[in-house]
């Protein structure tokens, strides 16, 4: 059964230096509160896994948590660059960042293979691109029935999978609706999982479009109201598009970035 714990405890028990960690949420339900707690606990040498690193990994990279990143699209959606990601790759600040680069389709299939306990998935993809030569977790594979050549991607099974969700009940059953992305896959693919939720409720009212993760498939649940901001939680609050746009200026220089993180993340232990 999922333990209902405080976010600080959950992160300190589940995430360790050197772990591979996936904080997922496809635009929706990005677990910012959990990411900030990782930053506050000064975890290091993480392999950060996410289809769209988004602002949360920009912040974690800039804060020095990451040694490596596995991803498929590292931009600020509709705005431009992730400056901290770029600074790490282009200039090695605050530390060099190894990259393992895939396409969205490949990442989604890698998660699904991980959730399915098989070591690889098969898709038509990547062929003709230079990712085929650059990425070790890709290989051509031939169909045993037709002889057609396709592409295999290796499964992803992170040490820790972290997602945000709208609700859990007191047993730890988790309910998610709206854009559901790869939330289920990453929880099921990971050795340990943490779900932060907007609220813990007595009973999960059925919702159109909702999925439920049973408590026994989740390691820990922590309440984190507004825990996806500046991303959003469908039915709770909207995406803070203004913040995504302001982040461009905040993150462009190392100083303004560090100042912002000190004020808005480091100084906020337990008060978020």
């Amino acid at each position, binding site marked *: 059964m999922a333990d209902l714990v405080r976010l600080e405890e959950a992160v300190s028990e589940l995430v360790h230096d050197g772990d591979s960690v996936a904080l997922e949420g*496809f*635009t*929706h339900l990005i677990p910012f509160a959990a990411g900030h707690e990782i930053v506050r606990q000064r975890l290091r040498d993480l392999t950060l896994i996410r*289809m*769209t690193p988004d602002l949360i990994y920009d912040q974690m990279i800039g804060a020095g948590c990451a040694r490596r990143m596995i*991803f*498929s*699209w*590292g*931009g600020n*959606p*509709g*705005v431009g*660059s*992730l400056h901290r*990601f*770029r600074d790490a*790759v*282009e200039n090695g600040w605050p530390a060099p960042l190894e990259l393992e*680069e*895939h*396409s*969205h*389709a490949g990442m*989604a*299939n890698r*998660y*699904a293979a991980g959730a399915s306990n098989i070591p690889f998935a098969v*898709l*038509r*993809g*990547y*062929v*003709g*691109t*230079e*990712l085929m030569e*650059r990425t070790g977790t890709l290989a051509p594979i031939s169909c045993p029935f037709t002889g*057609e*050549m*396709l592409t295999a991607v290796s499964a992803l099974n992170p040490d820790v999978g972290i997602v945000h969700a709208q609700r859990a009940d007191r047993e730890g059953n988790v309910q998610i609706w*709206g*854009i*559901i*992305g*790869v939330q*289920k*896959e990453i929880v099921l693919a990971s050795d340990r999982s943490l779900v932060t939720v907007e609220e813990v409720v007595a009973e999960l009212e059925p919702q159109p*479009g909702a999925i439920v993760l049973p408590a026994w498939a989740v390691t820990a649940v922590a309440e984190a109201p507004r825990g996806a901001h500046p991303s*959003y939680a*469908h039915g709770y609050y*909207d*995406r803070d*598009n*203004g913040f*995504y*746009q302001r982040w461009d200026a905040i993150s462009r220089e190392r100083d303004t970035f560090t100042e912002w993180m000190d004020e808005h993340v480091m100084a906020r232990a337990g008060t978020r």
Partner: protein
Amino acid sequence: MSENGFSSDEVMTVAAARELTDRTVCFVGIGLPSTAANLARLTHAPRTVLVYESGTIGSKPATLPLSIGDGELAETADAVVPVPEIFNYWLQGGRIDVGFLGAAQIDRFGNLNSTVIGDYDHPKVRLPGGGGAPEIAAMAKQVIVIIRQSQRTFVERLHFRSSVGYGTGPGDRERLGMSGGGPTVVITDLGLLRPDPESRELTLARIHPGVELDQVRESTGWPLRVADDLRETEPPLEDELRVLRELRATLEAAA
């Protein structure tokens, strides 16, 4: 804003929207593609079906989304599906008529770079990467590329091949086993290029109002082929511009 009363962004967006016929199923990324598809939906092609890679099928947003996963896309969708499903059952399944793509660089065969400027291991500029593009480029029945045209973007040789257009020429897509048809049009701020039916090389087919042919040649990193029947792009209609500007205003209002 040019002296014509519309900007180069506007002429690009309108030209892209016009490429869509009604009931087309479009896989759209954020930015100009999303704007163009929504413009088509709100003008001549009301039954255009918008599919976003976040898993929303048939979204009908009243305001322009800033990200491909804005809440309104889910609220107005016919169906919301998991991300593995959108790529496997819908894109790879061959159900997407048109994929819209942008890029940092394009070559004469419509191959795209959205990964790095410079060397991959020590890039001068680290770009966001492929995202959904490699598979959209391979699998959509037809691809529309939207990109600003200059010596920096229209290059002889890509710094990285993120997505495949026609590879090194005729027959390459077939050899690579690609199920989609490849790029049928490249829309820029200067004009509109289509692949030559034989050589697959991008060929200037339309030039936007007020643009000189020499200017297009100078903005291309290879000797540009020009169609025999080169014509001027029909300027954006008043109605197209009005709807487009209303749409863009919703994006700014939301920020």
